[in-house]
């Protein structure tokens, strides 16, 4: 549909009509698609807030680029895919598409009920054109052509001089289904992000998790999520096993992770033992529990300056590399007379190289060691401000020293260390493993999947089917005792007519001799 450059006529309606026709033109569709592709680029190059794998990236970027950072932030470059300009592009695209495709569907509906149109006067100008001489009754030839075409599921109309036939309406149907399922897909995505949630939790072997908001380490609800009505299940991590490649060049690569858990699908219900693995989530109603990571939690016990045991249990250390070198802190707020804090590394297979510092050489527990330094003073937990469990707030803490050196010890399981001046004792009892679970609910997922399937089917049909017309016409007056037959096909799609379709029609006609073909507009080599 050609759109005039400017509105024709005056007044608001003329402008509105012109704007609508411009918006729904194919040219606009191409431009909007191009804009969408370009707009998606910065989000892959700049750190993004919503993207899970590195939550600290935006903060770091802003620290490194103090002038550029805030500007990018203001313009939404750290949340590209939820920014107003990105939304503007895809919403415009959806409107444009609907406005473009629906009228096409209406036209399709009409043309599918109407008869195939009359043959153009000059058939020779069409995609494929043949002539033949006919020595039998005209009606007989036309009838044979109609039978042949009907058998090939053409819609056929026979009149006195000609047969007209059309096929491939399914292509437009496919095109329509494809485009409209984009709308449904977007709807499914929207439902998911409005009503769903995503959360992360770390569970140590032996510990439990109940699906309430407060138990999550990180919880990201949608704007309309009812966070008080989460599926009320709970699970206990009984055992976590990890297998690693033990030899060869890929030694240390992860090979299998398995979390054995006990699930209570409903409070007070029967418990059930299940295995959660990577790519094999646990499903509880609409909620899915995915295993996304793992690491170590050294089990320690701490006695304070009074000699009382003030802490016993596992402490999660965060892995920092592929061999599970892990960093962490131990906070003992109940210690008297002063609170205690420890900071350091856990190494499953320790190597303490003075050059590169402490690190693990292999992810499994071949030579586990806990390396700690100690602090005394105020941990800063009393004011209620949230604090990272992986970091000490050192503003009111003093490092424990021996002489001029910071106090530091490397412990194997079973070993203890006593702080100078009897400030406390820490014992490294054993090692537990922990699992990271990602827990998600997405109520729009089924809609999105259905839309995706429809999209693929519609697309395949619209690209595979060729809509085309065939006309066959026999002249009134015989020349030299024979009538002349003209046949032509016309493709309504960019792909051109089906090769040899016309020839097979002609071959099926009685008493018909080909009388030379016109070369097709673009002769192929070979």
């Amino acid at each position, binding site marked *: 549909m050609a759109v005039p450059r400017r509105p024709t006529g005056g007044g608001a309606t003329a402008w509105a009509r012109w704007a609508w026709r411009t918006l729904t033109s194919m040219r606009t569709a191409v431009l909007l698609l191009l804009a969408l592709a370009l707009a998606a680029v910065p989000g892959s190059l700049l750190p993004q807030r919503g993207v899970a794998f590195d939550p600290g990236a935006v903060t770091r970027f802003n620290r490194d680029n103090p002038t550029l950072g805030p500007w990018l932030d203001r313009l939404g470059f750290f949340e590209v895919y939820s920014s107003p300009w990105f939304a503007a592009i895809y919403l415009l695209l959806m409107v444009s598409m609907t406005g473009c495709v629906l009228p096409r569907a209406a036209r399709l509906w009409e043309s599918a009920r109407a008869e195939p149109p009359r043959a153009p006067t000059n058939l020779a100008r069409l995609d494929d054109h043949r002539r033949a001489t006919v020595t039998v009754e005209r009606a007989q030839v036309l009838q044979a052509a109609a039978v042949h075409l009907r058998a090939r599921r053409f819609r056929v109309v026979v009149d006195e001089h000609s047969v007209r036939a059309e096929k491939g309406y399914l292509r437009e149907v496919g095109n329509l289904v494809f485009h409209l399922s984009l709308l449904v897909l977007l709807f499914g995505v929207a439902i998911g992000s409005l009503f769903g949630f995503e959360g992360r939790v770390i569970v140590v072997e032996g510990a439990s998790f109940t699906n309430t908001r407060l138990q999550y380490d990180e919880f990201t609800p949608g704007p309309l999520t009812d966070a008080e009505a989460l599926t009320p299940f709970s699970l206990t991590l009984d055992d976590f096993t990890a297998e690693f490649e033990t030899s060869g060049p890929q030694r240390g690569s992860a090979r299998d992770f398995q979390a054995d858990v006990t699930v209570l699908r409903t409070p007070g219900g029967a418990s059930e033992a299940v295995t959660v693995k990577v790519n094999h989530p646990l499903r509880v109603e609409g909620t899915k529990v995915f295993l996304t990571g793992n690491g170590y939690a050294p089990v320690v016990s701490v006695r304070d300056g009074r000699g009382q045991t003030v802490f016993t249990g596992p402490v999660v250390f965060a892995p920092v590399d592929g061999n599970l070198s892990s960093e962490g802190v131990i906070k003992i707020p109940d210690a008297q007379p002063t609170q205690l804090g420890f900071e350091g590394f856990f190494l499953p297979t320790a190597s303490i190289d003075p050059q590169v510092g402490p690190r693990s050489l292999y992810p499994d527990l071949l030579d586990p060691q806990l390396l700690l330094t100690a602090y005394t003073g105020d941990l800063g937990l009393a004011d209620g401000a949230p604090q990272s469990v992986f970091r000490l707030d050192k503003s009111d803490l003093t490092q424990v020293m021996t002489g001029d050196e910071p106090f530091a010890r490397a412990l194997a399981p079973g070993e203890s260390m006593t702080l100078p001046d009897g400030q406390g004792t820490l014992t490294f009892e054993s090692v537990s493993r922990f699992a990271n679970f990602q827990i998600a609910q997405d109520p729009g997922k089924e809609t999105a*999947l259905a839309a995706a399937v429809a999209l693929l089917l519609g697309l395949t049909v619209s690209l595979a089917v060729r809509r085309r017309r065939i006309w066959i016409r026999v002249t009134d007056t015989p020349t030299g005792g024979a009538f002349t037959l003209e046949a032509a096909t016309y493709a309504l799609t960019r792909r051109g007519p089906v090769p040899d379709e016309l020839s097979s029609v002609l071959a099926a006609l009685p008493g018909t001799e080909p009388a030379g073909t016109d070369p097709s507009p673009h002769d192929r080599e070979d």
Partner: protein
Amino acid sequence: MPTPLLAELSDRLIYSAIAVYALAMLTYAYQAARRSQSPAQRSRLVEAVAVGGPSASPAPPPNPAAVSRPAPAARRPERIAAALTTLAFVLHLAGVLARGLAASRAPWGNMYEFTTAATLAATAAYLVFLRRQPVRDLGVWILALVTLSLGLAVTVLYTPAGDLVPALNSYWLVIHVAAAIIAGGVFTVGAAATALYLLRRRADARDAGVAVAGYAGRLPAARTLEDIAHTAHLFAFPVWTFAVLAGAIWAEDSWGRYWGWDPKETWAFITWVLYAAYLHAQSTAGWRGTKAGWLALAGYAAFLFNFVGVNLFINGLHSYAGV
């Protein structure tokens, strides 16, 4: 056969394939250089061959369409090149299969394997097209790309055969990556045809009306190249769509969300949108032809970047594939 032997065999086969690909490419290049000679030079050549050869070929018909059709003797290098390509393909295929057997899994679990499989798909697509479309002029370019990529694969990207990290251990990996590889192979044919189409269009525009000389002038007609490109893209686009959707299903199963704008997902989306723009442009007045061609090349660039750039330069969930 024990696994290390199979892995070794796979490596040898890939090396041999590279050598034969290089030969095939040189043969195509030789042919292209010969065809780029002026028509006058060439017709002298044809006559000389026709007179001297044992089976005198008939005089070239006056039909203008036939002028660009080389005489049988002149086409011999082309046949040799096609045979070499087929041979290299068979070696390459055997290499990829041996790798899969050595690791007892689908042979596309890291960048090295992905490269060998994707280049295999590109050659396969080319050979399939060669049977039914006039695509031999694409040969030199596609083989150059394949040889270069395989060369990089065995030198820079090489990873010994081994098991997969747990995240990749899923049958959705097999499906998703297989679809991506097939789409990539056919997109490669599409991109090569589009690039030659753009060259040919430029030459046509420059020498309007005159018989065009030089390399571009000896290429198939612009319309033919455009049709080849369009056919390739029409086939590859739904396959790519399927690859993206299968990837989303896999992501849902392993990370708990089907779409998270991870860089790899983002570039798959960009590729998809650019090719959608290309398909629209093909039905849009004012965009058909050259502009649409650039959109298709942009789509291919995004596809390549997703594979090379995103794996190597951008950190994301997908970057565990192992270089």
